């Protein structure tokens, strides 16, 4: 499904300027800057320890940056952590209702009903989350991130624990979100997912933003005609000394 950004809507949804995060003497993010467009589907890729989760955690308001600026308040950003952040002893509806109330939504029950419908979990509403499959838990996890109808949704490795079928359904859902104008930012180790679903790629290595552009542009940069996208990405990192 084409995202809103790919159909020509170009309003800036979120801006990041010189974002830096230090943990003691280690610099996890070093003056990272970029802008996200409304309805854009952006993939962040990079090796382990590149700073992907740190970047998303700062955008979500979980971590405070050491320096730099984010133009959108964390309360206006939906956050879907890598591991489902859910209470396994509560039902799907109870989890959604709790977070809807904590978000201080004007009509929590309506929001719960909408999310159950959107994530196709209406028939599982009263089931304990701990009894759900990993794929359905991830859908509830995303539904909670969407409760406040955020303009920007952050997903930290959303497909990491899913099987291929669940992954396909997840990307359909995310694609539909972006199609409705929600800016979606996701981190992943799966380079093929970025090539397939992302409108734009951010390559983050050792806290430094090495590349920003479309998957096709990344392919052209490394001469993709000679290798597949994953090999091209590895070659790209190798050329830059990583």
């Amino acid at each position: 499904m084409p995202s809103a950004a790919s159909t020509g809507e170009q309003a800036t949804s979120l801006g990041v300027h010189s974002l830096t995060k230090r943990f003691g003497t280690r610099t996890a993010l070093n003056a990272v800057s970029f802008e996200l467009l409304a309805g854009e589907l952006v993939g962040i890729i990079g090796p382990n320890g590149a700073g992907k989760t740190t970047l998303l955690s700062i955008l979500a308001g979980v971590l405070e940056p050491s320096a730099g600026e984010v133009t959108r308040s964390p309360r206006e950003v939906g956050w879907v952590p890598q591991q489902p952040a859910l209470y396994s002893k509560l039902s799907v509806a109870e989890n959604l209702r709790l977070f809807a109330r904590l978000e201080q939504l004007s009509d929590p029950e309506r929001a719960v009903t909408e999310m159950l419908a959107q994530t196709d979990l209406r028939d599982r509403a009263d089931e304990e989350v701990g009894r759900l499959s990993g794929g359905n838990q991830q859908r509830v996890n995303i539904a909670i991130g969407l409760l406040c109808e955020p303009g920007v949704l952050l997903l930290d490795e959303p497909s990491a624990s899913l099987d291929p079928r669940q992954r396909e359904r997840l990307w359909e859902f995310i694609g539909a979100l972006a199609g409705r104008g929600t800016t979606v930012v996701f981190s992943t180790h799966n380079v093929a997912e970025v090539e397939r679903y992302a409108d734009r790629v951010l390559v983050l290595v050792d806290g430094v933003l090495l590349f920003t552009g479309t998957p096709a542009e990344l392919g052209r940069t490394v001469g993709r005609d000679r290798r597949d996208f994953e090999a091209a990405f590895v070659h790209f990192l190798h050329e830059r000394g990583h």
Partner: protein
Amino acid sequence: MRWLLIKDLQILRRSPLLVGVLIVYPIAIALMIGFALSSPPGKPKVALLNEVAPGQGTINFGSQQINVAGYASQLFQSIDPIKVHSREEAVAKVKDGEALAALIIPSDITEQIQSLVTTGVGSPTVELILNTKDPIERQFVDEAISARLSQVEQAVSRQVLRVAVTDLQQVLSGGTIQFLGQNFHLLGLRNARTIVQGTIASLPPGSPLRVALSQVSSFASLAIEGLGFASPVLGSIGTPLTVVQTQLAGQTTPTDSYAAAIAVIVSLMIVTVLLAAGMLALERSENAYSRLVRGLVSPGRLLSEKIALSAGCAAIVSLLMAAFVSLFVHLDWSRFELWVLALAFGGLAFGALGVAIGGISREVSTSSLLAFLLSLPIAFVALVPADAVSGAVKSVLDAVAFVFPFKAALEAANNAFSGTAPGIGWPLAHLAVLTVVFAALARLALRRFA
């Protein structure tokens, strides 16, 4: 905070096994501790061989008799006797473990005492056979029997002295004594002196008997004076020290209500600490913490909610427990509002300790284990008696007890329950300070919690 409280109660409602264990386990521990503290140890079973023939337990002392056998019954106040008929049977009972010890009273015990009392020669001896396998039980039996034998010794001594003093009085003042079923009249020194002085007065002035009788009269006067002092001196030897007990009203606490306070506070501590530590660590284990603190709930409010939840649940359990205990032990219901205050403040302090543990351990099973491992030593440190350790060690233990909530909570509950002690203001203030301190520690720990 309301929604978080409801959420946590829902989670607890769906974990009946956990809640059941959390309630039953500490109550069982607390009741056992309270029972152990309020009940004296039972009488040890002792095999008793009395070889003194019936009717032979009497010592003749002067004109009077002392029934030694009567004092043997005093021993039974401290022991549970198993009567045996031979030394071999007594030894067998001890070896089999049926009796913790055997006490053998030889047949010549009265003769030995009689000889000792009348001639100063003799060594009345009883034999005590102890099972040496268990040193604690051995000490227990040894102390019980030794203490009681010492009392019997003192009682016999007192009786001998009493007889001696009575006889002395009769020597001084005269009287009637029984000997071999017949009554005999004793003249007494005072009467003898009177008679001698009367005789001297009736003699002619130049009578040679006057000098001799005057010497007898002087001797009688000296003897009367000396023996007059001897009577109270002998009487005082029987009870050389007198202990005067003074009960200061308002400063003492019945042992039973103190044990009840210990039982209730142990229960309060275990429930609160485990619940607070576990529920906080659960937020991280469920990965919900990072979602909550990104603007939905501040870390401070999250900690407050966990402290309030655990303190509230545990205070209710402890109050019910106190009410139940009050069926068997006198607790002052007229101070019920003080019970509530003591348990609420205690619960808050223990809750703060619990979230500090949960914040540091960051994982449910680790935090539960840590909470449990810390709880009992915290209680025992506060319960070590002052005379059980040296002064320096006691100072260290007091300092440790001061920085944890158990001692202050126990003091508050004890004062509230007994009604005989002063107010609970100071322990409550102490608990409030500890609540703030441990909550601050927990807040620091949350910095590395996400």
